[in-house]
């Protein structure tokens, strides 16, 4: 019963905050922005607000966090409430958990973002080239991607990590390459729909080169779907990195990250009956992952809905 009350309470607060945020955006922004945000649903506003909070927390982690990322204290395995210096307690080697949680966000988000950008550069360039040049290049790239996509992504990632060894850099590269196959498929399809347009034919018949075609004619028309896709890809990459780290194969110590925090703290869940705050520690890290992903998805969902609505 109390749990239900808590949930309702949280939902009400979230709705109120999102409403206020949207009202503030409409009030502050110039006219085109006003029109855009006036029709934004509350969930999307919530998503946007959360993304802003996460990004600021990640950027200003050194300012917000009470201690340094790898700072070790003589008090280890402190439970929340044991020591006023450590709000959420300390881990088995004496690092402040609140600090680790904040830095974990910074690392996980930053690495996922970097990986997604890499995957996008790789996939989008190859996809646009395949669609514009066509012929053997398209065949070569498409068949390669088909073969790479015939193995489930997590499984392939694990195989490659076995081979290249466990390190953060390896993980970033492996995921970027594997995820670029998905970006390739989408950007090739998007560009493929644009390439058949008469204005591309007109530019080709004028004698324009590949660079002009891709950057001046195709890219401006491909940006909206690609931005939405970037949001979705970020979610996938973020979840994949979290999963790998949870398995102990992703982001490596001493970097803090949410996936491995969940694994390290998971035993506390069994204390739920007599120490609810302690039990919620692993859920906090896992929930932080879920909350960011869901926020991005809410915003992407709204963008896709707008795009499909405008087409009709």
């Amino acid at each position, binding site marked *: 019963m109390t749990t239900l009350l808590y949930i309702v309470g949280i939902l009400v607060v979230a709705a109120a905050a999102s409403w206020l945020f949207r009202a503030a955006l409409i009030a502050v922004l110039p006219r085109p922005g006003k029109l855009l945000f006036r029709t934004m649903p509350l969930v999307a506003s919530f998503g946007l607000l959360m993304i802003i909070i996460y990004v600021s927390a990640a950027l200003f982690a050194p300012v917000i966090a009470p201690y340094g990322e790898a700072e070790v204290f003589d008090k280890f395995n402190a439970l929340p409430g044991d020591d006023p210096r450590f709000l959420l307690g300390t881990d088995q080697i004496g690092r402040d958990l609140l600090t680790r949680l904040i830095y974990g966000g910074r690392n996980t988000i930053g690495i996922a973002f970097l990986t997604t950008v890499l995957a996008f550069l790789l996939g989008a360039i190859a996809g646009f080239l395949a669609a514009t040049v066509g012929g053997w290049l398209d065949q070569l790239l498409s068949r390669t991607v088909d073969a790479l996509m015939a193995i489930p992504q997590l499984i392939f990632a694990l195989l490659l990590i076995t081979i290249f060894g466990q390190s953060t850099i390896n993980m970033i590269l492996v995921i970027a390459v594997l995820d670029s196959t998905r970006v390739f498929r989408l950007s090739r399809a998007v560009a493929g729909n644009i390439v058949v*347009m008469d*204005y591309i034919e007109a530019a080709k018949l004028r004698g324009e080169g590949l660079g002009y075609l891709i950057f001046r004619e195709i890219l*401006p028309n491909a940006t909206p779907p690609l931005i939405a896709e970037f949001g979705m890809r970020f979610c996938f990459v973020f979840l994949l990195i979290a999963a790998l780290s949870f398995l102990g194969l992703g982001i490596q110590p001493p970097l803090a990250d949410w996936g491995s925090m969940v694994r390290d703290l998971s035993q506390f869940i069994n204390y739920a009956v007599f120490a609810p705050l302690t039990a919620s520690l692993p859920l906090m890290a896992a929930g932080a992952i879920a909350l960011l992903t869901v926020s991005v998805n809410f915003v992407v969902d709204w963008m896709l809905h707008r795009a499909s609505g405008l087409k009709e």
Partner: protein
Amino acid sequence: MSEAELLVTVRGLRIEGRSEDRWNEIVHGIDLDLHRGEVLGLIGESGAGKSTIGLACMGFTRDGCRITDGTIEFDGIDLRNISPARRRRILGRRIAYVAQSAAASFNPAHKIIDQHTEGPMIHHVMSVAESRADAIELYRRLRLPDPEHIGFRYPHQVSGGQLQRAMTAMAMSCRPDMIIFDEPTTALDVTTQIEVLAAIRDIVEQYNTAAIYITHDLAVVAQMADRIKVLLRGDEVEEADTRTMLAHPREEYTKSLWAVRTFAPPPKPPAPPTEVPVISVQNVSASYGAAPVLFDVSFDIHKGRTVAVVGESGSGKSTVARCITGLLPPTKGQILHNGTPLPPDYRKRSRDQLRQAQMIYQMADTALNPKVRISEILGRPVQFYTGLRGAERRRRVEALLEQIEMEPSEFYNRFPPELSGGQKQRIGIARALAAEPEFIICDEVTSALDQLVAEGILKLLDRLQRELGLAYMFITHDLATVRSIADEVVVMKNGEVVEAGPKPEMFTPPHHPYTDLLLSSVPEMDPDWLTNLLKQRGVENIGDAASARM
């Protein structure tokens, strides 16, 4: 006619449509009466609201539309305020609908006859067995080939014209009091259109069914309707019986619609026999992959003259254009430009060779990049071909805009989606002119436009031709356009040239039988045209023409 009982009464109908998160009124208070056994033609250009009004007469609106005001009464029943269940008992049984695209409106998963018998079955009008027998009878009356078996095929196994007649039969299945025909022949070729028009008119007469016939084609509506209502942007312009309306239109708008068909620029003197043609297509054959699509096509285009290439869909007329521009290198034959052969592949042509042959497209929407400003759309070819930059380039673009009768200060910085269809097509013309070419291919440039706008484009093209001495290749399926602007005509069918020659010759008999069929199939603004044509051809002939096409 006027003594007949009133079947449908619509008063003060207002409908709103949703676009960009906002409701806008698209039908502004329309009144409409329809008597039993009467055919009312609803005519208007795109955006007139004619389909929306037609569907509203069934008490139906599409997603994203809503009726905000007015009454719709059908045989004493208030269609706007009855329960959905009661409306369903009327739809299909007492009011039926025939859609524009039969291919998309038949369910691909079921046989044609099973879709036919569904209505009578769910409305308990006939048993399935009775309805099947009746379907075969209707197919026979609609002159479908092999009426006993055609219904047992799936929709994708039957041609478009036949499917459209099968859909008319389906609409008849419950013997409704009224049928809404929503542009039933727009998607068909002219020769197929005749068969469908004749079939629809006969069946509606035989069963004394009332009908609302929606179309944008004046000549078609003249054959089908007893009365015509002209619509413009959701408002009624005027209404009269067909003969009165054709002979004495009252409103300026209606008169202007009628007048379109009379545009006829003065004829040009024939080209001197010794002149080297700008473009000469010589014995060109081409194929898509392994499938041959063009066979030994030859014709010449001279400076300052227009060659119209005419044919139905699949005739290969657009393929010829692709061969000339070099997008599809021919398998045999060659293209000469001022007597010199052009490289078959456009990638092998010099910048100057590319400059000399320009193209204007059918769909201005896809021909202009929506994310590029007019200044760049026109400025880029100017700079690319003539090397002008900065202020000089700007002056040239402004001059081009003036040439196509668009105000430079107003349009220089705009994006294509902000322009109307006709304005976009003008920008397409200006882009071709920017290259300062000798020769322009016009690919169905007016067929996506409303008639008045199309008229303006034709006049502009004619003026430019006389001023700049341009040679045009005009690809079209619309013979009215050919009649007004062509100097020479090339008739194509199944990838071959059937007949070619100067326009006056082509429009006077004797013709090749196919040219004859094509020419005589174009509806004319005479209410007796279809009746006379059918008499002249003999009813059996239409069936023959249909089977010959299969």
